[in-house]
Structure formats: C-alpha cells, structure tokens
C-alpha cells in the first residue's frame, strides 16, 4: 500500500516535470517564430497639420524648442520629436514652416516689434525667400 502511494507520487512528479519542460520549449519556439521587431524609424514624414505645443507655450519658448531640436538632431541624430500627446514630428524648421511659412511675416513681425535679431536666416531660407 505504502509502496503504491510512493510510486504514484514519483510518477506524478515525473509527468509534471515533463509537462513543464515541454511547456518551456513550446514557449521558446513561439518566441523564435516571431520576426524581429523592425528597427525604429529614424525619421518621420514632415507633418505640419498640427502644432507641436500650445500657442501660449510656443510664444514664450519657441527658441528653446528650436535650440533643443537643433542640438539633438544635428549632433545626436535624434530627429524625432515626441509630443506629450504621443504624436511624432520631424525635428526640422520645415516642420514649423510647412504651416507657419504661409504667413511670410510670421517670424519677422514679432521679431521686429521685440527688436530681436536671430541668426536663423543667415543660412536657413526664411519664409520671405522661399517661392
């Protein structure tokens, strides 16, 4: 009687172990079957249909945003801006000017009024110069 009980424990345990090993390998297999996730895209299409931040914030901080974009995209190659709402933008002046460039005086009006002379347009094409 005692012997049978012991045997059932041993065989029960063995079956459990086999099941566990089988499950383990099955699990591995299902992992190997999946293709590797695609490498993250380094760029996103220029999307100028929506603003990257609220107007109030941009009015006060656009120069900081542009400086941050310039440094991280030119020096680190991190060209994607992730907005808090999850949408992605390409870190490029063209992203801004794709929409704001429609008003040719968009930058100049305010800069003239505030008497600030940013150096952007020494090299970059301003909305005044683009056709």
């Amino acid at each position: 009687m005692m012997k049978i009980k012991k045997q059932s424990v041993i065989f029960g345990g063995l079956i459990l172990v086999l099941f566990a090993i089988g499950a383990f390998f099955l699990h591995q297999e299902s992992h190997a079957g999946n293709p590797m996730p695609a490498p993250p895209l380094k760029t996103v299409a220029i999307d100028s249909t929506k603003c990257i931040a609220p107007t109030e914030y941009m009015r006060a901080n656009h120069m900081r945003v542009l400086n941050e974009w310039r440094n991280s995209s030119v020096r680190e190659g991190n060209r994607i801006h992730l907005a808090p709402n999850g949408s992605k933008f390409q870190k490029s002046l063209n992203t801004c000017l794709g929409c704001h460039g429609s008003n040719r005086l968009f930058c100049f009006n305010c800069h003239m009024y505030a008497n600030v002379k940013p150096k952007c347009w020494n090299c970059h094409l301003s909305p005044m110069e683009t056709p």
Partner: protein
Amino acid sequence: MMNEQRREFIRKAGFGVLAGLGVAAGIVPGYSLEKTVLPAWDEKPVAGKIRWGMLIDTRKCKEGCQQCVAVCHHEHNVPDFGNRKDEVKWIWKSPYEKVFPTATQQFKSKELSERSCLALCNHCAESPCTRACPTEATFKRWDGIVAMDYHRCIGCRFCMAACPYGSRSFNWQDPRTAIKEASTSYPTREQGVVEKCNFCSDRLVKGLQPACVETCPEHALTFGDLNDPKSDIRMLLETNTTMQRKPELGTKPSVFYII
C-alpha cells in the same frame, strides 16, 4: 530517522525545481523575466554600427565630366566666386599626382599622369580636423561621417590646417552673393564659417544615395556601409585593389580609389 529527513529534503527540493521551471516556462508569471520591447528604447542611432564609405573607380571617371561636382555644389548651395582665393569646394577633380602626392610617381603611364581624380572629404576614421576643432563644431558622427555644425563654427580655421587633404574651405565673403541658382533642399552658410562635404547626410536621412553617386553617368562611385561585409562597397573592395589618399598618415580615410 536520518534517512527520513534526507527524503523530505529531496522532495522539497524537487518541488522547488518544478516551481522554478514553471516560472521559466511562463506558467507562473515571473516579473524578473519580463520581455523588453525594442522600439521603446531610445530612438537615437547607435554609434559605430554603420561606417559610411565611398569607392571611386577612377578608370570609369570620364575626363572633362564635371556632372557630380555641379550637382553637389548646386544641391548644397556651394558658392562660386570665380577666383582661387575665395574658392569653396565640396568635391572637385585634381590631377593624379595632386590627389596621391605620396604614391609612386616614377615611370607612370602617360594615361595615368594625365588622369584626373575625384577628391572630396575622406570622412576619416581618425579625423585630424575634429581633434583640432576647439569648439567641437566639427565632430565624428555616429555613422562615421565627419560632420560640421555650422551653428558652432567660430571660423578659426584650425581644421583647415589640420586636414591633410585640403577638403575644407573658408567663407571669406558672404556666400549668398555667389550662389547663382539657389537650391531649397539645403541651407546656405554664412560669412566666417568653414564648410566641406557632408557625405550627403541630408539625403541619407531621406533614404537617398549621395548626390554625386546618384548623378554619375558612368556609375564610377559606390556608396555603402564599410561595416557591413555584404554591402556593395565591401564586395568591390574585396574584388579590387584599392588605394586611400595618404594612408601613411594614419587617418584611415573612408574614401577608396580604384586606379
């Protein structure tokens, strides 16, 4: 008595192993084995993974053809002042003995001594210009490109003195006055900054080949990743005898030549 204890221990150890296997198999959720999602990692490129390089077949390069030079200089708004003193160049053609001054010049064939070779920034792996730059305006990029950050350049021209290939030009005057047909695909520079070939990093980011490679009618230029043994450029390097400019300086140029 002793025996009973040992049996108890073995039994408990067995259950422990089972539980461990269960965790590994994912039956029991094991948080220490949580999968990592790759795209959730930072989207910054990994340094050293890619090393862009170019192979120029000087045999195919036609005498008198300046197409790549014209296209590059137009695309990147390189000014043309029309005199040597103010000259700005990203890519240009020079006689063989000027491009390879330290290669053997004795008993060259007539054809070779008359041949002109394409020269551009070598995007050296051991770039002397980036070491000379006091503001880190020129720097080694993650993909092997020696890049210029024109925003930071103070115009000291140390990099021009350091470059053994004359690949860098200085804007002595406002370049905008000397651009005949402005291109909207790339910004201009301003007076007082150094400029040079950027291996078309502006086009690479769009998934395009460099302008010179794309435009060459003879397909004399090959562009690719030197770190990838299966790339076209590595295949050609494997099957041809190639040269670099002034290899004895140890700058490890990324531009190779078939003579």
